[in-house]
């Protein structure tokens, strides 16, 4: 009790009350309760998971180099794409965007000393490594084979490999973790904002995290129900989905997608937030249509609960229901469009600095726009009849989740890297990384649209032996190797930056949000004094709207010439 008492610092609370950082290695880096360390722990863990899942993707592409490849057996192939999908969704993108970025950035941006429940935060993180072990460990006894959606009956007790049960447990664990994180963040953002930081003064990344937290808090629990039912059916033979005993396979699809559609937005909204931070900073101008972007996030979050059945248009729902879901789905195009147009307009009249982060942000808009437009095809029932379950879907979801979420993740990584490590990355390498990734990405996934339209179903280890199909598949596979190469560039860049990168100073980008007004990396307690917030975050023509920050930088180990970031100059220059 007294422990958790001492951990909490409400802004209006006892400001001078700062703790000593823990000294022991374990308490400092392993079982740390510091949101910054936990955030970095998330980065490292999910990075490792991403490497494994990425290799599985290369297994898939290698198999598809030729129509009847024997690179791996069909069973192994099915295991590969199933674990690849599950891992990328639940062990990489979601924890990366909420756990990693959310943990590291959000409390700094709202001027808090930590999240509301640091111990809970630590607990939620430590559910991840076991989940990863369960999922990847399932290969030992036969990993799940029915894709990341695991539709019964083929994932059920009669057909599913034993590892499917481990899959249930792993995803359940991840679900609990992200529910708790959602609750934790929601309370933090609702209760612990610095004095003066009204909702409309919050950075847009915080808005995105808030929308996301609501989704993960509510939707993820529904998934837990679906998984629990599948687990019971597999282990104790309790009939929920088994048609032979009155159960219904369609029931799983409803329960699964009621979570998994909001999950799509859990995976993209924080990326929206990242982009909304990067554009103003590097265009040196306020975000265009702050409120429009903030509220459209909320609108999207709300709508996402009412569109799940658009994943089930071929399952045999009643036509009237399908129409309802179709129309609701199309409505989402409007708030999403507003966001994209506002970002484009944010560049208008800017003084744009082409850092790697900015390049990734621009690339994000292009690829995500493409993914969004193909999404409209799938929203319309008649067209979806043709495209459902084909490689067109694979292309669409990768344009959204890779071209969207992962591009956003890299943009954010390049952007906040100096804040996390105190060192700069090599911009030249970064730009090569972007160029290679962006090209290879499009070469990999663009052909999948054509393949799908022309009749290649997804999740197949063989395809029709026809030169046209072979050509596009080979192109996709070869490009995917190039993509893997671009990740190596990033890895080298990151490691050499850690080793010998130039010192960053508090605010290398001249950004305006709170986290850039304190040393890089920040002190254990983030802020010496809880700052006061006087105005909106992106006003480049005005002085920084923060109080209580005077002596934040005094004892940061930074060469004096770096002590004042561009932000300060802009402020001076405006006088």
């Amino acid at each position, binding site marked *: 009790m007294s422990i958790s008492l001492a951990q909490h610092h409400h802004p209006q609370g006892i400001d001078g009350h700062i703790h000593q950082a823990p000294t022991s290695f374990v308490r400092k880096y392993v079982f740390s309760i510091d949101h910054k360390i936990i955030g970095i722990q998330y980065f490292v863990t999910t990075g490792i998971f991403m490497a494994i899942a990425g290799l599985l993707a290369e297994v898939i592409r290698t198999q598809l180099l030729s129509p009847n490849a024997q690179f791996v057996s069909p069973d192994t192939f099915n295991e590969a794409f199933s674990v690849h999908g599950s891992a990328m969704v639940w062990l990489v993108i979601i924890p990366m965007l909420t756990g990693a970025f959310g943990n590291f950035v959000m409390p700094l941006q709202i001027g808090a000393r930590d999240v509301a429940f640091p111990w809970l935060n630590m607990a939620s993180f430590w559910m991840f490594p076991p989940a990863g072990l369960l999922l990847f460990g399932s290969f030992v006894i036969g990993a799940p084979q029915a894709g990341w959606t695991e539709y019964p009956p083929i994932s059920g007790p009669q057909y599913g*490999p034993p590892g499917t049960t481990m899959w249930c447990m792993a995803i359940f664990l991840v679900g609990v973790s992200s529910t708790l994180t959602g609750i934790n963040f929601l309370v933090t953002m609702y209760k612990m904002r610095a004095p003066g930081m009204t909702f409309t003064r919050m950075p847009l990344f915080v808005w995105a995290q808030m929308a996301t937290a609501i989704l993960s808090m509510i939707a993820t629990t529904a998934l837990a129900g679906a998984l629990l039912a599948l687990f019971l059916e597999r282990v104790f033979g309790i009939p929920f989905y088994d048609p032979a005993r009155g159960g219904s396979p369609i029931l799983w699809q409803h329960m699964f997608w009621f979570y998994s559609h909001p999950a799509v937005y859990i995976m993209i909204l924080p990326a929206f937030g990242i982009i909304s931070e990067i554009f103003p900073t590097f265009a040196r101008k306020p975000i265009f249509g702050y409120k429009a972007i903030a509220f459209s996030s909320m609108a999207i979050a709300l709508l996402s609960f009412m569109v799940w059945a658009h994943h089930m248009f071929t399952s045999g729902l009643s036509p009237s229901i399908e129409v309802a879901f179709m129309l609701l789905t199309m409505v989402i195009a409007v708030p999403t469009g507003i966001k994209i147009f506002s970002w484009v307009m944010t560049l208008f009249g800017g003084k744009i600095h082409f850092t790697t982060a900015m390049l990734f942000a621009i690339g994000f808009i292009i690829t995500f726009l493409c993914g969004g437009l193909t999404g409209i095809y799938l929203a319309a029932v008649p067209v979806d009849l043709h495209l459902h379950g084909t490689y067109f879907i694979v292309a669409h979801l990768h344009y959204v989740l890779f071209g969207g979420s992962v591009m956003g993740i890299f943009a954010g990584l390049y952007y906040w890297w100096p804040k996390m490590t105190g060192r700069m990355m090599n911009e030249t390498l970064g730009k090569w990384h972007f160029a290679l990734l962006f090209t290879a990405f499009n070469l990999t996934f663009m052909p999948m649209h054509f393949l799908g339209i022309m009749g290649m179903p997804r999740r197949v280890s063989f395809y029709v032996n026809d030169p046209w199909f072979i050509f596009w598949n080979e192109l996709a596979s070869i490009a995917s190797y190039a993509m893997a190469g671009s990740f190596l560039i990033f890895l080298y860049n990151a490691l050499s930056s850690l080793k010998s990168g130039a010192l960053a100073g508090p605010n290398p980008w001249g950004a305006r949000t709170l986290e850039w007004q304190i040393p890089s990396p920040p002190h254990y307690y983030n802020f010496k004094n809880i700052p006061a917030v006087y105005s909106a975050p992106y006003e480049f023509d005005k002085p920084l709207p923060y109080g209580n920050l005077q002596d934040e930088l005094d004892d940061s180990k930074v060469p004096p010439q770096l002590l004042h970031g561009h932000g300060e100059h802009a402020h001076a220059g405006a006088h």
Partner: protein
Amino acid sequence: MSTHSQPQVHLSAGFWRTTAVLTILNLLALWWEWTHPLSAFLPEAARPADEIDGLFLFMTLVGTAIFIYVVGYLVYFAIAFRARRDDPENAIGLQLHDATALEIWWTVIPTILVIILGVWSTMTWARLQSQPGGAFTMEAIGHQWNFEFRYPGLNKTIWNEMHVPIDKPITMHVSSADVLHSFWVPEGRLKVDMVPGLINTIRFTPTRIGTYRIICAEYCGFSHGKMIASYVVQSQADFDKWYNEQKNGAPQNSGGPGAGAAAAALPPSTGGDAAAGKALFDTKCVACHTTGAFDDRKVGPGLGNVLHDAAHPDLVTGKPATPGNVADILKNGAQGSIGVMPNEQMNGLNDKDIANLVAYLSSLGSK
């Protein structure tokens, strides 16, 4: 943010030039898409296809226009408003917070487009629903990994070959015998899931003579990728000819499991040539099996002493390990604990091959 004083915005000549270029690009792209509709690449072999392609074309045209303009302006702004080398380091951009008129436009226009699309899709969908059916009503049943077709008045099932007469509205009930499958004819833009315990109905009219693919579009296990059948659209005369052949001809089975297999006599399990069997085993079976002991598995168990294994007297089918039962598995396949033994069709075996393989397997580890 209305509290902020809005700076004056004037659009440069470059902006208008860009707009012109983008418009030309757009017209070219739209012209190409208009002259190359989906049907130019993928023939329309059933009635709903034309409607669906119309909607598809509309989305492609609008989507292309949006994509070209948005990306075009994005790139143009990025280049036109880049920070120049001679800019002071603390130079800032135009402090523009919003432009109500503009925002109203880009909210209203997409809304209108969405409404058009919604209405159009709904009407198309309604027409697809209310299609005439019933020249005759047939059934399709998904099996791992074969399509079974049942015709009215035909006392047997047809495997993996769906014959339909042209221009006759057809009603088809689909379901599944085991797991989820999906009946997909790309050339017909026809897709409906085959759900065990549920009967879905699809109505369509074949419109183009020829043989097309029926593809399983819902993951269904080991050989999902090879679950392909043919959709044969024939003239009424040819169809009747085929139908009568089926009616009068001997009950054939195209090697599917279930009914087909039950009708089949137990394949020959004797008189095979062990040497030929070895050759066959080393080319096909080795993908999943070794000739080692039972536990020496790849995907399936080692088959070194499948017929002489005291520890495993029974086969995966639960039947005793006799040459006959082994031949049965080779012919009809079996559902194993961690994978599936494909049937003869999937493995491309004929009865002779089976006999040879049985002979080879019997010759193994017998000493």
